[in-house]
């Protein structure tokens, strides 16, 4: 469904990516891992159109999306839960959900009710402005917001960062539930153990290059990969 090949580029004169690849199939959960600063977020920025690759090709649902503006890509069906949550501080929880909602197809489409079922905590805080939510609540809101655009591919960048173990677990469980609905997911996280539980396929990034790919069991076995590229 999404395939990015040999992505190169970066910020202005600073090149960050030197050939990153990601492929996601329908209904698949893909994990993108690597140490700090290896270009995971940068790759995602290219997938969502925030950055335009200097070289390489990205196609989504059969069409090239290189150079397509961000909002068009979002409408094609890529939903993003960005690094650092990025909720709208001056909108209430309820308004976040209203603004983001876009009709999805069929009975499986995400609605405000379904999101609130998934995150009951948000239901309790509907009238509260997002800037006054705690980190975990904001993270839930960011995920709910992305789901409500009814994407075909959901991208999560460090969705459990800075969360308490309990909440972190909650988020992982929600992700698992979401993945079961058949949505394609790209997830970036440091928690290898959790990733191994839900991801079907792994892409390891080092210095802006995809250095290893394989499925979950292969990844669990590949101790040298862990040592060399992930520092664990």
């Amino acid at each position, binding site marked *: 469904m999404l395939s990015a090949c040999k992505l190169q580029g970066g910020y202005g004169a600073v090149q960050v990516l030197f050939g990153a690849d990601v492929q996601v199939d329908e209904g698949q959960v893909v994990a993108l891992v690597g140490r700090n600063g290896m270009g995971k977020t940068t790759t995602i920025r290219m997938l969502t159109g925030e950055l335009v690759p200097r070289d390489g090709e990205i196609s989504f649902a059969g069409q090239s999306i290189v150079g397509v503006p961000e909002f068009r890509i*979002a409408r094609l069906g890529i*939903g993003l839960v960005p690094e650092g949550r990025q909720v709208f501080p001056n909108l209430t929880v309820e308004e976040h959900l209203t603004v*983001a909602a876009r009709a999805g197809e069929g009975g499986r489409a995400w609605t405000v009710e379904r999101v609130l079922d998934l995150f009951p905590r948000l239901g309790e805080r509907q009238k509260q402005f997002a800037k006054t939510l705690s980190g975990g609540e904001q993270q839930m809101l960011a995920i709910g917001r*992305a789901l409500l655009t009814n994407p075909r591919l959901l991208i999560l960048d460090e969705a459990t960062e800075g969360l308490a173990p309990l909440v972190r677990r909650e988020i992982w469980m929600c992700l698992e539930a979401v993945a079961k609905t058949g949505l394609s997911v790209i997830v970036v996280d440091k928690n290898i153990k959790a990733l191994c539980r839900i991801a079907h396929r792994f892409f390891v990034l080092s210095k802006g290059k995809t250095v290893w790919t394989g499925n979950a069991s292969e990844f669990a076995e590949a101790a040298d990969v862990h040592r060399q590229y992930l520092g664990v």
Partner: protein
Amino acid sequence: MAILVEQVLNGINYGLLLFLIAAGLSLVFGVMHLINLAHGSLFMVGAFAAAAFAHITKNFLLSVICATLLAAAVGWLVERVIVRKLYARSHLDQVLATFGLILFANELLRWISGGVPQYVPSPGLFSGTVMLPGGIEYPAYRMMVTSIAAIAALAMWMVIAKTRAGMLVRASASNPTMVRHIGFDVGLISTLVFAVGAGLAGLAGALTGPLVSIEVGMGEQVLILSFVIVVIGGLGSIRGTFLAAMMVGLVDTLGRALMPLALSGIFSARAVSSFAPALSATLVYILMAVVLIMRPQGLFAR
């Protein structure tokens, strides 16, 4: 006593008029964080356009509508050509570039109009006065202008607070990148908001035309006052802008009316009559300073 009531009415009236002028500025600041010094110029464009259209169409209502649309169109153009490049810049750059716009707009209009003050007749229907309860005779035109301002205030509040478009506008104000990620064209939203702000300025100019002298430089006089209002209200808050406009209107009007009386016990008549206007002119700024010292973010910070 009746005169005091009348002065309060004058103050509310003036406040609503000021709101109409400041609303567009507040909107543009709130969404794009843009300090638009050229807002006054759009106000001026509205007034001149209304005068020109009134000349052609001989119809007041039509001329106001045309002037509003023209100002919005000018806003659209200016946003696309210049202003769009300023969003990511510092406030300082914005001040500078829009200052350049003022210089240009003033000279252009002076060149087109020959520098002569323009005239737009007040509409026949509203050229007289109305009798208010309590025996206060009040200019009908002012009543009309202020009701339009009140309606505009209400409509803006409804749109911003209650509609999805309003939420989108507020969301773009705080995090445009994320708005793009949920599938909306922020560039278009900005252009539209700027055009609406320009249209509001144009509407204010067209409606104020029959009350004042339509001349080059009229924009700068309202500009400063509008900024004062926007800042007192809390940047980008329409509700705050409304409240601040009313406060400024009342303080200014009552200051002008009461300051001579207040001072007359203390100073000689000559000193009073020359010092009172100066002191009442500073009242608005004193109000702003007091509000900002107590609440640096303004009355309603976003």
